[in-house]
């Protein structure tokens, strides 16, 4: 199969990607020169978007293949270093690239659950799964379940879980793609989704895993460069050193903490100014509460009464001897917007009340873990933090699109090394994100707060004009000076606005958008391929038609890829639910369905078919049951078990899965000798007289 030796192949790869990186830097410089000559920003945005998508399409086209092992596992010759990069970009989604630093900005310590969870899970991958799966050496995760536990049932449950998990996750990714394309090109969100989809398909459609792998390596390079440049520059500005990962903690964090104390201390001038704004929000919250109480007492009658009062006020203003046009307009708007439906009124006012109450509160300390009002609330916060970390870690070690990547290395040894490189490349971004959050926080607390509204920095007014959900700023207490309580920031702003905050040219903003797009596209690619492979390989080839010729197997996979992609894009364009919850749900579901049966399948020879079937169904069932019962979207809102939030449903699912697997195994006979030999086979990288499970 191989026309060149592995060593030659590796050397060539290094050369190609060095050229590629050089070429990409030259491209960025070229766009920078265009900007210098006055090409408008919108055009630069288009250039970045289309140039990178064309690039991915080019790699996808060059890697087109019709060979089964190339299509499913990239020919099993991806060296550890490159598999690490590919896994890195497969792993880091739009949520990591754009959302992570923002989450940390908004939640401080408590957001670190994502940082730890999404990196620590690789310890489980490395120690418990990757080398053994590589030795097993087939194409998909259900393949392993099918061979280890025997029969079609474990395989098909595995397919169901893999499709469910990947689909939930891919919707979140395509959402990210749509968001970035629409923001940087001005296209409609739904159009942006389908443009992005085209970008996803050109990579995976022609060349399957082979094309996806080499595009993902290219995408990793873009995303890491795009993430690092603005952060390093911002660090240079604030601390004079280019290592934000250290200076953020040694020099910037103490300043942020000091400012937080000042804002919360009414005796200082800044604290007093904050207090005037908070007082206004307390009043608003109380007013909303009063309206809610009135509604509860008077029902619909209260609404008509109040609306009437507002209309009377309009009439009175109009009848005035010297009518004030502005006041009339405001009064008319108030009367017109006044809710008439009691349910709508209740929802609106409840939101007003809690929104105002939140802004009336004190500044949360960035470094303080589990901040809450009393000891009991702190314990609940701590418990949920640990549970979330656990679910994210175990989920990481059970996501089929990640585990599949370790089938692609040339050997078990390379698989082990490759997990190291994967985590290393992921680590580069994840240990920068908390530092970025601190740097931006300092910029806002230290510089933006206290400036006059007449002289807002350009980036603030720009973003406030583009999107109110990302940046909203208003002079609430009319003193002409910005107070912290007058600013509302959306998490996604942090990464998107960093280049402007650091005073870098627009070309870097375009680069960041290209990086975000690369992150979202690469993850979506891996996920779509996982779904299509599970259906074509595990259902069609292994169950329906085991004699299907190669060409037909690949054709079926490509057809399915197209169908799944279109369905996913359609679901996304309807904007379902909260992205962070979707992502969290995918991890809990994956952990509950796969982790017990994969790990015990390797480490416990006795584990058998009945155990695996019970373990997977019970695990997945408990996890889904708890989510449906407690997540507000489903409208049941049952009481929580031990105060665990719905995003941590996996902790129950995983535990239940392990128990069910063990019980199911012990009440039925031990697996056959062949299966026990298979377990020995995956445990040793090389055995004499070994069986061969490798797929052609």
């Amino acid at each position: 199969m191989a026309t060149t030796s592995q060593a030659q192949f590796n050397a060539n790869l290094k050369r190609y990607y060095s050229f590629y990186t050089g070429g990409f830097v030259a491209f960025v410089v070229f766009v920078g020169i265009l900007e210098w000559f006055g090409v408008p920003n919108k055009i630069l945005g288009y250039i970045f978007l289309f140039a990178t998508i064309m690039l991915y399409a080019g790699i996808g086209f060059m890697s087109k293949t019709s060979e089964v092992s190339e299509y499913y596992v990239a020919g099993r010759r991806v060296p550890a270093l490159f598999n690490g990069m590919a896994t890195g970009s497969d792993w880091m989604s739009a949520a990591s690239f754009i959302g992570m630093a923002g989450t940390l900005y908004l939640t401080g310590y408590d957001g670190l659950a994502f940082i730890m969870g999404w990196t620590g899970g690789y310890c489980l991958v490395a120690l418990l799964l990757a080398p053994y799966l590589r030795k097993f050496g087939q194409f998909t995760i259900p393949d392993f379940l099918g061979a280890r536990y025997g029969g079609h049932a474990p395989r098909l449950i595995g397919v169901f879980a893999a499709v469910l998990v990947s689909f939930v996750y891919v919707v979140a990714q395509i959402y990210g793609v749509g968001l970035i394309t629409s923001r940087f090109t001005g296209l409609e969100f739904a159009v942006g989704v389908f443009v992005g989809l085209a970008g996803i398909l050109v990579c995976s459609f022609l060349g399957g895993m082979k094309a996806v792998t080499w595009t993902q390596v290219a995408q990793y390079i873009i995303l890491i460069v795009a993430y690092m440049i603005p952060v390093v520059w911002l660090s240079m500005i604030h601390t004079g050193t280019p290592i934000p990962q250290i200076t953020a903690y040694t020099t910037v964090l103490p300043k942020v903490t000091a400012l937080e104390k000042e804002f919360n201390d009414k005796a200082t001038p800044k604290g007093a100014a904050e207090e005037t704004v908070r007082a206004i929000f307390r009043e608003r919250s109380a007013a909303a509460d009063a309206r809610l109480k009135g509604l509860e007492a008077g029902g619909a009658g209260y609404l008509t009464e109040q609306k009437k009062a507002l209309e009377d006020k309009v009439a009175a203003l109009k009848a005035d001897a010297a009518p004030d046009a502005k006041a009339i307009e405001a009064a008319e708007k108030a009367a017109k917007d006044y809710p008439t439906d009691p349910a709508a009124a209740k929802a609106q006012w409840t939101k007003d009340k809690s929104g105002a109450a939140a802004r009336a509160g004190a500044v949360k300390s960035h470094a303080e873990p589990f901040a809450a009002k009393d000891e009991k609330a702190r314990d609940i916060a701590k418990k949920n933090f640990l549970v979330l970390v656990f679910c994210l870690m175990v989920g990481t070690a059970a996501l089929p699109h990640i585990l599949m990547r370790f089938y692609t290395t040339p050997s078990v040894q390379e698989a082990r090394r490759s997990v190291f490189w994967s985590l290393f490349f992921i680590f580069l971004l994840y240990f920068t994100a908390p530092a970025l959050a601190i740097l931006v926080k300092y910029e806002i607390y230290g510089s933006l707060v206290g400036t006059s509204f007449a002289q807002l920095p350009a980036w603030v007014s720009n973003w406030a004009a583009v999107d109110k959900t990302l940046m909203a700023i208003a002079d609430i207490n009319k003193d002409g000076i910005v107070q912290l309580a007058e600013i509302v920031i959306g998490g996604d702003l942090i990464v998107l606005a960093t280049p402007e905050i650091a005073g870098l040219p627009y070309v870097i903003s375009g680069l960041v958008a290209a990086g975000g797009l690369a992150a979202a596209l690469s993850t979506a690619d891996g996920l779509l391929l996982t779904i299509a492979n599970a259906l074509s390989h595990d259902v069609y080839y292994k169950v329906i038609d085991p004699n299907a010729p190669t060409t037909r197997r690949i054709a079926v996979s490509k057809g399915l890829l197209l169908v799944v992609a279109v369905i996913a894009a359609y679901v996304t364009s309807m904007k379902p639910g909260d992205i962070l919850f979707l992502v969290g749900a995918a991890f809990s579901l994956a952990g509950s369905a796969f982790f017990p049966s994969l790990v015990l399948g390797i480490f416990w020879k006795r584990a058998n078919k009945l155990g695996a079937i019970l373990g997977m169904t019970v695990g997945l069932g408990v996890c889904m049951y708890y989510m449906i019962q407690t997540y507000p979207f489903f409208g049941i809102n049952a009481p929580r078990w031990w105060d665990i939030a719905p995003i941590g449903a996996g902790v129950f699912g995983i535990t239940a899965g392990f128990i069910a697997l063990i019980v199911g195994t012990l009440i039925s006979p031990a697996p056959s000798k062949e299966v026990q030999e298979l377990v020995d086979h995956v445990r040793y990288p090389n055995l004499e007289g070994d069986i061969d499970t490798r797929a052609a």
Partner: protein
Amino acid sequence: MQLTEKHKEYWQRNLKLTGILLAIWFVATFVVSWYARELNEIIIIGPVGFYMGAQGALIIYVLIIWFYARYMNNLDKEYGVHEGEEQ
């Protein structure tokens, strides 16, 4: 395929190493987070509780995986279960 004593010893050593590294992983993640409020009283680089979550734990994870790959790849050779140069 018959496993020799040597093979069993290899697997035992693998299990032992896996157990030790998982214990380190567990302490760095869950025990440290459990005491995060208390650890924040100590300042090394930054408040220790916060710093461990933001960076310290991550560095430990990378080291765990690096050590495991190195150790196991040597162990394979020591016990003669390493792969030949197939490709």
